[in-house]
């Protein structure tokens, strides 16, 4: 599924909003004004609404169902998307390890935030890289540390 779009340079608001939304969807940027997502009913709908946003901001937009001409090209696209998610999972795992050493209140709060981030990355992860499991394990470990702490606190409580 491809979205081709052109937006006026000014105002910059719609460009920024569009880019933020595309990023959240996990698109692959093929070139300037051309992004791709694996085709399914959800990705299609998401790109359709974004295309309408572009039109509403006096831009031009088109939706295309396209197929890479070679397997190599398809693989390159999937590899690129997987690598982008892998980097996000690595950051998440790093944040989990960093949070393990903080005080219990901060740790619980961070755990909640990181779980939300994990779900967000999952939603845009179409070609799960091995880093996904590493991040999942880091999250579980942080949850385990937080749980031990909670038990210890409730035991000393009157």
């Amino acid at each position, binding site marked *: 599924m491809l979205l081709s779009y052109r937006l006026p340079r000014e105002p910059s608001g719609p460009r920024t*909003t569009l880019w933020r*939304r595309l990023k*959240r969807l996990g698109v692959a940027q093929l070139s300037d004004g051309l992004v791709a997502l694996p085709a399914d009913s959800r990705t299609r*709908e998401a790109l359709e*609404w974004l295309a*309408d*946003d572009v039109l509403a901001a006096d831009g031009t937009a088109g939706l295309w169902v396209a197929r890479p001409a070679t397997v190599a090209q398809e693989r390159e696209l999937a590899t690129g998307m997987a690598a982008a998610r892998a980097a996000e999972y690595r950051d998440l795992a790093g944040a989990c390890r960093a949070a393990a050493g903080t005080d219990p209140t901060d740790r619980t709060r961070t755990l909640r935030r990181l779980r939300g981030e994990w*779900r967000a990355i999952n*939603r845009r992860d179409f070609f799960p890289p091995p880093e996904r499991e590493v991040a999942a394990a880091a999250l579980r470990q942080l949850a385990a540390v937080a749980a031990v702490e909670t038990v210890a606190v409730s035991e000393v409580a009157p």
Partner: protein
Amino acid sequence: MRWATRAGVHIDRAACAWLIRRFLDPDAEFVFVTDRNEVPADATPFDMRGVELGHHGGDCSFETILRRYELTDPVLWRLAEIVHEADLDDARFDAPEAPGLDVVLRGLSMTGDDAHTLAVSGPVFDGLYEFHRRRLLLGREPA
């Protein structure tokens, strides 16, 4: 009155259908189409590209309908936050109900047709509405 929307109903369309039947048109009849050209001449389209009752300015269709029909019930606007997050997930609102509701609706679309999804999700939205109505009245979580 007849109302038309895209087939393969998900959270925003299910919530809109509930909103329409409960607050705008008790006798609403819904038609599900795969293309905008199939919308019957006498039907009002919603949650479709290029129609008035669609996504506008970052709003989902549920929010658009509330605005368009000037529904100011604060409970409905709280539900709108949930529907918005379940549909668009852009962190505009804090709606912890959203991810669960999203999964339930996606699951329903796998086990039955659109009429079934509306039939099952209707009472779910009734319950959500009642919960948030009581929360608003009490000023805290109802029991």
